[in-house]
Each structure stands twice: as C-alpha cells, then as structure tokens.
C-alpha cells in the first residue's frame, strides 16, 4: 500500500509538470490551430538556456530565470515569425510537418550548440525529503509540483483576468470575429508562441532539476501528446486534469510492470494511453467533437 501511494504521489507531481508544458501546446492550438510537434524541443531549449545563465554564468537563480523566460519567449516569437507565419493558409498537414521539421532542426542544433553530454543544475535542494506518514516526497518533486501548480494558476489568471488573455480567448473563438473587433490576430499568435515557449521552459527547468538537462528531454516533451489527447485538444481544464493522470499511469507502469517486462514499460505507457483514448474516446475527456460542414 505504501509503495502504491508513493508511486501515485510522485506520478501526480511529475504529471503536474506535464500539465504545465501541455498548457503552452493547447494555447497555441486554441489560438491558431497549429499542432506544435516541437513543444518538447522548446522545453529542452529552455532548460539549456537556463543552464547557460544559471549553471555556466553563475547568475543567481531569479535573475537566470528572468533572463531565461525572456530569451525563450524571444525564441518562441522568432520561431513563429520565421516558420509558422509564412505557412498561413496552407493545409494543416503542411503546418504539422513544418513543426516536425523544426523539431528535427532543433534536435541537431541543440547538441551542436550546447554539447551532447548531460548537464546538471547547481544543487539547491537538500537530499532526502519530506516525510508524511510512510511516504517520502523528495524536495525536488515537491518544489516542481508547487511551481507547476503556481504557474498553471498564473496562466489561468492570465487567460481570464488580463486584457491580453482576453484578446487571446477572443482569437481562439474565431479569427474573423476577433479581427472585426480590431484585434491584430497576427500579434496574438506571436504572444501565444511566446507563452508556449515560456511554459515549456519552466517545465524544462523543473524536469531538469529533478533529473538532468540533456537532449533526451525532447522525448519527455513527447509526453505532451498523451496529455492533450486524453484531456481534449481544445481544453485547458482537460490538460490540467490529464497531466497527473498520465504521470500516475506512467509511474505506476514503471513501478509494477517494469520487473515483468525488463524495463521500459513506463516509457511506452503514454503511447498506450494515446492509442486507447483514440479508440474509445477520440476527442478526449473535455474535447469538443468538431462537426464539419461542407
């Protein structure tokens, strides 16, 4: 029982980070309909950028974080401007493949710029963890969970209470109606990419402080897909709920199935989730079923 609860707990905490990263993905999808295959690469890029400021230049964490937020927002804007904007009006398939190309490009660019070996952030957490009853929560996980929770709260506040958030929701509702209200849709797209890059960067920071910073983080970024598919592509609430579900199932598979299958069950679990969701409830828990008209 203790083992099970321990797994569930760490799954929820890991999953909260997935939720945070998926939030950026959903923001892009809602506002512009673009499927971003490079979200995991934005995550890794953000983690590397923070490593440069924090680990290499030795700046204090909060200055490093601030600079990393700014530069990854800038990176998101550059990506939108150089690759997504020229594709306006192209079929969805072409735009998806552009982001796949972007992912392939970043996949090679990042190790060539930052080096292929694993990096580690400076240690800020004491070893061991918080003891509650039989359960041990390591400080890294706790910190990640709280930060992810806080960031999700900030994003929700941003979407619902600020002017820019209101404009974004207007654009997500319909491009033409937003445009007729005097909203410059192109600029909103750029902002959503900046937000997606920032949410990915924070996710990269959290995952990087749990384990290490390396190019293999991009495959952790692929966890965004089960989250958004289970939660429903259009739903922010869906990805907040689905993140911990995916995290828990993954950690449970790691804990219970790995001894039987000689490892790797946790890594493949998210894809099983994708397949099962697609077969039984294709539009996810909170997703809208799109009714098409000719």
């Amino acid at each position, binding site marked *: 029982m203790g083992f099970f609860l321990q797994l569930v707990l760490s799954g929820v905490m890991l999953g909260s980070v997935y939720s945070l990263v998926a939030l950026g993905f959903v923001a892009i999808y809602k506002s512009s309909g673009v499927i971003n295959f490079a979200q995991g690469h934005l995550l890794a890029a953000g983690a590397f950028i923070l490593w440069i400021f924090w680990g290499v230049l030795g700046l204090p964490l909060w200055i490093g974080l601030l600079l990393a937020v700014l530069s990854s927002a800038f990176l998101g804007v550059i990506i939108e401007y150089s690759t997504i904007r020229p*594709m306006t009006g192209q079929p969805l398939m072409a735009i998806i*493949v552009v982001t*796949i190309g972007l992912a392939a*490009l970043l996949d090679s660019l990042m190790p060539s710029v930052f080096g292929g070996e694993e990096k580690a952030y400076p240690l800020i957490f004491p070893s061991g963890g918080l003891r509650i009853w039989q359960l041990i929560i390591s400080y890294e996980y706790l910190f990640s969970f709280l930060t992810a929770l806080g960031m999700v709260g900030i994003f929700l506040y941003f979407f619902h209470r600020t002017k820019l958030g209101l404009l974004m929701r207007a654009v997500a509702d319909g491009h033409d109606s937003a445009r007729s209200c005097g909203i410059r849709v192109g600029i909103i797209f750029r902002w959503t990419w900046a937000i997606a890059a920032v949410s990915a960067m924070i996710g990269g920071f959290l995952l990087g402080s749990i384990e290490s910073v390396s190019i293999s983080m991009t495959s952790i970024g692929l966890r965004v*897909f089960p989250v958004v598919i289970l939660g429903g592509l259009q739903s922010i609430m869906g990805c907040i709920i689905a993140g911990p579900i995916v995290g828990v199932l993954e950690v449970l598979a790691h804990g219970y199935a790995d001894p039987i299958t000689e490892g790797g*069950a946790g890594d493949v679990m998210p894809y*099983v989730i994708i397949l099962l969701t697609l*077969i039984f409830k294709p539009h996810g828990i909170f997703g809208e079923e799109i009714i*098409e008209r000719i």
Partner: protein
Amino acid sequence: MDVSRPCGVFDTFYSKDIAVVRTKTQWAWLVMGITLSFLIPPFLNIHWLGWVIETSIVIVAVLGLYFVTGLCGQISLGQAGFMAVGAYSTTILMNQLSFSYWLTLPISALITGIVVLIFGIPSLRVKGFYLAMATLSSQFLILWMITHPPFNRWTGGVDGLTTPAPTISGIVFDSYHLWFFIVIIFMWLMIFFAKNIGRTRVGRAFVAIRDSDLAAEVLGINIFGYKLLSFFIAGIYAGIAGSLFAPYITRIAAENFNLEKSIWYLGMLIVGGSGSVVGAILGVVFIRLLLQLTTILGPSIHPIPIVGPLLANYLGGLVFGLVIILFLIFEPRGLNHRWVIFKAWYRLHPFSY
C-alpha cells in the same frame, strides 16, 4: 498538371489515352533507365553500391508512405516501425523456421500489413493530427515490443538478430553485388504497382478522401475501408522494404528503425512532392544525396573556428530540418512540381506560352 504533352501526340484510342508511357521517346528512356540500373554494380565501389541499395529500399518504404500520406492525406509517423516488423519477421522466418526467401518475402509483407491494420483501427473515428498520434504511438509500441518480453525471445532483444544470406535457386546472395539485383528488381516492381494503383478506382478513392473526406463519403466511398486499405498497402510496402533491408544490413536491431527514420521518410516524401510517385523517388534520392554530402563535408567543416567542431557532427540533421522547412515554405508541392515545370518549359521552348 499534365498541361503539355509532347508536340504532335494525339490519342486516337482510349488505350492510348490512359497509357502511362505515351511516346516512343518515353519508352526509350524507360528501357534505357531500367537497363542502365542493372548495369550499375561493376562501376561503383562497395560504399556507393551500398548507398544505391539502401536508397532503393528506402524508395520502396517511402512509396508505401505515398499511399497513406500522399494519396490518402493521413500523416503516418510509423513507417520505419512498420519496416521493422517486415525485417524482423523475415529474419525470424528464415532463422527459426528455415523458410526459403521466396516464401518469406510475401509472408512478412502480409504480416506487416496486418500489424499496420491493427494500428490503423483508430482511423475509424479520427483523422489528421489524431491519426498522426496513433501512428507515432505504433512506432514506439512496435519497437518496444521487439526489444522487450515476451517477444524478445525471438527477436533477440536490444542485441538484434543476424539475418542469414538468402539462397534463391541455388545462388547464395551473400554480397552487395548479388543482393543489388534482387533489390533493384523489387524497386522497379513496386514503382510500377505504385504508379498504377494511383490510377485505379482505389487510388482515386484515396485522393477523394484526401481532398475532402465528407464529400468522398457523400459520393459513396467507404472512408474507413479505404483508409484501412491505404494503411494496409503502406504496410505491404514497408514489409517488403524491411524484407529487402534485413539481408542487406545482415544484422538488424531496433535502432535501425527508430522514430528519426520515420520522420526522415516523411520528410523525403514531402520534399519530393507528396502526391506523386516521381516525387517520392526524387525526394528520397535528393535527401540521401544531401546526407552523403554532409558526411563527406563534415570533416572539412571541422577546422572552421568555433562553429566548425560544433556543427560537424550534427550536420545531417541540421540540413534535413532546414530543407524540410524551406521546402514547405517556398515550394510546398515539392521537387516534383519543379520537374513538371521544367518539362513544360522544355516542351514549349522556344515559345513559352
């Protein structure tokens, strides 16, 4: 698309109107091309011969993708994984059951087709991005099943398997020079089938689904059936490609078929022009030539200060990503479109109207 045909060619019979090869010149080119392709081996060293064999195999795999993505409009990110099924079933059938290669090839193609069908089931209810996700998942699941229990008893786990040299009517195909002929024969056959399936009722149904699946349904096309059929054909092609690949590489392992390969195959198809057989072939040859170029240029970039050593190792991936992005932005219809424009220009020259 077929704006210009050679001057003075008039179709006086229906059979002429639907012919793929229209003129005597085209026949001459075709026969010459096929003949020349069989005369290649003595002129190439072992490295480039291997390159030609692998390119031909990749052409077969990408032609499978051409049905799903190019004709039917469904993004597939699992072609390399499907190829793995073909390669592994070939090796296992030959190793454990000592089947002859002639029997193994169709059986493993069929097995691959059936496996792909299973992963194509989500296409019953979803399309577009969701289906891309299903194929992505199948890519990971297939590779995981190959390397983990219970299947690793037959597949050798992460270590992989050694494929014996196939024996066909007494000849042991144990060198590149011999295996080349089998590969090239199958490549031409598969090109022939691909070209023709695209023109049949089935191919036209695929195109109708790609252009508008609702309109296709209204026309009475069974969307689910045809989508599954496109996956099945892609699976057959992937199976044959894998089956040809296993004896070529002799030692197959899961890492030969990872996600990166699937993405590369998709990229090749896009760069070539997804809707045409010629495009698929052009794309494969173009990207693989670029890749060769980067491996040749890699060491010479190395001495450049600062950027040189950084870029040298990852040049292939960098160039590939850039090429895909640039092609989709500036020439979404791919190399094939350029080729069509060139042909039109050539035929109309000097009167460009």
